[in-house]
């Protein structure tokens, strides 16, 4: 049983033409780092939040999400609390929005320990100091007494990471943890996350729209488009030979982590919104391989192609053309 598993999870919001998530299956084993990659609005955050029992209000669901043996869809509040307070933690994109600006850093780090675990102040603070040192902040005792606005974005994201570790989770969900930061800080934060993940044997689900970042930090990658997984493979395989036209497009449009953005050819068109739906492949309108009469008739299923899974009608026949 993997640490985190999504089994055919669908999430439908009232008044929308298509589901936000449409049959998502994904798994993260203990100690494994997995990335979920996709453009803005593809449903990455909804996916990650579901692992903490956070669903958009009014959503109807099908399928299941299981964290460390706890099924979250339709779970009672106690199970949800159990997952949130010791099994999984989330690191959010913008630490300035995710940390209460009027309370001290120390309060952010210790409140869950004190109010949920019932530990004493001294014990909770000692643990907070350890964690601040573990995420590489220079002066933990001082940071405990500081307010969020007194720290830079990168430092605050480290605080966020420390906060996620207080409950000693087995799974870290990172929702675009570096998007709000500048490039140098991004690399530092990724290094911290990677080191913590390996030292502590954590399962890691990294959400990003940057395939290069995903490949640098993770073992396996899932590519998501319009609420569906369209391709999944090991990081090395996916980067070397993307099979799905969307993955190939993403590789063309993601600026490299280091050096000049030489490969910047964005995918033409815009992602499909929630108010649109298509009878066939959701990517058809933007796909240069789209074949009328096939791609616009039925949605392609995720099917094995060699070692990996790809959801494309032409996965077998266009292999060579996608290869760079």
């Amino acid at each position, binding site marked *: 049983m993997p640490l985190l598993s999504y089994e055919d999870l669908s999430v439908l919001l009232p008044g929308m033409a298509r589901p936000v998530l449409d049959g998502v299956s994904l798994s993260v084993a203990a100690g494994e780092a997995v990335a979920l990659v996709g453009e803005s609005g593809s449903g990455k955050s909804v996916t990650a939040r579901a692992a903490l029992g956070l669903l958009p209000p009014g959503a109807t669901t099908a399928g299941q999400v299981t964290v460390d043996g706890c099924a979250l869809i339709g779970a009672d509040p106690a199970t949800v609390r159990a997952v949130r307070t010791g099994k999984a933690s989330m690191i959010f994109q913008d630490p300035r*929005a995710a940390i*209460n*600006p*009027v309370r001290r850093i120390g309060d952010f780090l210790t409140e869950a320990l004190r109010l949920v675990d019932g530990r004493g102040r001294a014990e909770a603070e000692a643990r907070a100091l350890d964690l601040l040192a573990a995420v590489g902040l220079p002066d933990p005792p001082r940071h405990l007494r500081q307010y969020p606005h007194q720290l830079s974005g990168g430092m605050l994201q480290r605080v966020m990471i420390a906060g996620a570790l207080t409950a000693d989770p087995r799974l870290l969900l990172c929702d675009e943890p570096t998007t709000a930061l500048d490039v140098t800080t991004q690399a530092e934060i990724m290094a911290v996350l990677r080191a913590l993940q390996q030292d502590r044997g954590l399962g890691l689900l990294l959400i990003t729209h940057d395939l290069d970042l995903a490949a640098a930090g993770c073992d396996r990658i899932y590519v998501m488009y319009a609420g569906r997984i369209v391709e999944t493979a090991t990081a090395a395989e996916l980067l070397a030979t993307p099979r799905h036209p969307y993955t190939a497009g993403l590789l063309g449009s993601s600026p490299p982590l280091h050096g000049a953005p030489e490969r910047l050819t964005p995918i033409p068109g815009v992602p499909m919104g929630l108010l649109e739906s298509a009878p066939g492949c959701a990517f058809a309108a933007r796909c240069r391989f789209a074949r009328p009469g096939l791609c616009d008739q039925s949605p392609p299923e995720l099917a094995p192609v060699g070692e990996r899974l790809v959801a494309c009608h032409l996965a077998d026949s266009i292999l060579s053309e996608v290869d760079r």
Partner: protein
Amino acid sequence: MTSVRAAARSALCRLLGMAVTLLVTSFLVFSSLYLAPGDPAAFLVRGRSPSPDELAAIRQQYGFNDPFPVRYWHWLDGVLHGDFGRSYLFHQSVASVLWSRLPATLLLVGVSTLMIAVVGVGAGIVGALRRGTRTGSAVLLMVTVGAAVPSFVAAIVLRSVLGVKLGWFPTIGNGTGFVDQLHHVVLPAIALSVTFMALVTRVTRSAMLDELRREHVEVALSRGMPRGAVIRRHVLRNALGPIVTVCGLLVSGMLVSTAIVETAFGMSGVGSLLVQCVDELDFQVVQAIVLLVVAAFVVVNTAVDLVYPLIDPRVRAAGGAR
């Protein structure tokens, strides 16, 4: 520490600003009443028909002939020494007239403030947390009705229903002894606070709703924090700024409304004194009360400004050096 020094400096600036405001106010108050129609000397000899000589002598005695700046200076000098002049109406010093009326008004305002803080803020919290339910709609309805009811209407209704019809509360006077006074002050306090309560409820509700939407609230919940603790520590705590500010702004409105409410309930306080002295052209008392109301307003709002950095530490950073 530099931040402490910066804080002390900004506090000092605020206090200085407060002093200047009070000085300007005192000038405006004095000059507006100086320019008001009606001859105070004629008032003093009301009931008799004085000879012109007699009037002139009175003018001389009370300094009515002195040029405006001199009179202002005399008055200000007195005020600074706690001497607000003499009341023509009561034949006592203004200070002792005020002093005898102040406790009743302070009790009224104190009880009203407590009601506003507890009921107004409480209803606002409930209104925000129960938004979209029947309870939430009831709060909104109460706010709409409460804000539309002027205090004199509330006073009349409360008196006739809870006072006269049901006989639960006395309808007139101040009462003697603390418990009896408290009993007497309940209806006036409700009448005084209805409008302000509605305002505070509205501000509290919308501030709470704003804060409920913040991402850090969802983050706290996603960390398994109990909902009650999140509401208290992250939602209400962050909503305090607007709540405290609006409470500070209400003070002067409340003090002015005591005039209506105290008169309606036949209470003897500073508010009813103001009405009486305006009627009888007792300028010295009117000046003192107006100045007092403004002073209370300025002091309360300076206090709000001074506690604001405690409520929102980001203000501290913006005000002083980082």
